[in-house]
């Protein structure tokens, strides 16, 4: 499906997991982004979940060295909670990824999740996803 051009990149937990496990295409696209002056964005909740579930913290650190970690603010917490409620999901991490992607007009690298697509749809944002 082809939709409006995107100007940024947001990583979900799947992107962090793939990098930690040595997915070479994820590292190659991360490199390509940086070489083009694009700094991928990672919502803080994604970072928490990545470190909770992945043993290779060193690889996560290497990926995050070239990423902008978006802080989890009070305002963001309310936004993500309301969005998750509307999307009828308990997956706050997916809601935070969808919300950041919509707000920043960004493509997403993450695992394929119904919650992610539903949350993006509620924001009127057609999800552009590289599913890992």
């Amino acid at each position, binding site marked *: *499906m*082809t*939709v*409006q*051009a*995107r*100007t940024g*990149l947001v990583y979900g937990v799947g992107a962090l997991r*793939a*990098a930690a*496990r*040595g*997915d*070479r*295409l*994820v*590292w*190659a*696209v*991360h*490199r*390509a*982004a*940086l*070489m*083009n*002056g*694009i*700094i991928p964005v990672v919502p803080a909740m994604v970072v928490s979940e990545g470190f909770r579930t992945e043993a290779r913290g060193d*690889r996560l*650190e*290497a*990926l*995050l*060295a*070239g*990423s*902008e970690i978006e802080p989890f603010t009070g305002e963001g917490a309310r936004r993500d909670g309301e969005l998750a409620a509307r999307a009828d999901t308990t997956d706050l991490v997916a809601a935070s990824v969808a919300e950041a992607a919509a707000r920043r007009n960004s*493509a997403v*690298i993450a695992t394929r999740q119904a919650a992610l697509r539903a949350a993006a749809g509620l924001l009127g944002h*057609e*999800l*552009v*996803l*590289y*599913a*890992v």
Partner: protein
Amino acid sequence: MVTKRSVSLADEVAKAVEAAAHEDGVSFSAWLSSAAERQLRVRQGLRGVADWEAEAGALTAEEIAAGEALLARLFSGVSGATSRLRRR
């Protein structure tokens, strides 16, 4: 904490920065600081990639091209499929 430094910029660069800062609603200094911060982040990020490559093996020209092509596809609004490249 802020450090004051005297920097020299080519006239055309200074004019462009001034216009961009005005457009973004920030000061000349804030705009320059933000640009430097981004450049440093890119540099740190590429060091991170190099650290991973030191362990996993350098990305080949083919892999680099595949990454660039995927980025271009995503930015043009086309969703992608699951990676089939090797993992290390």
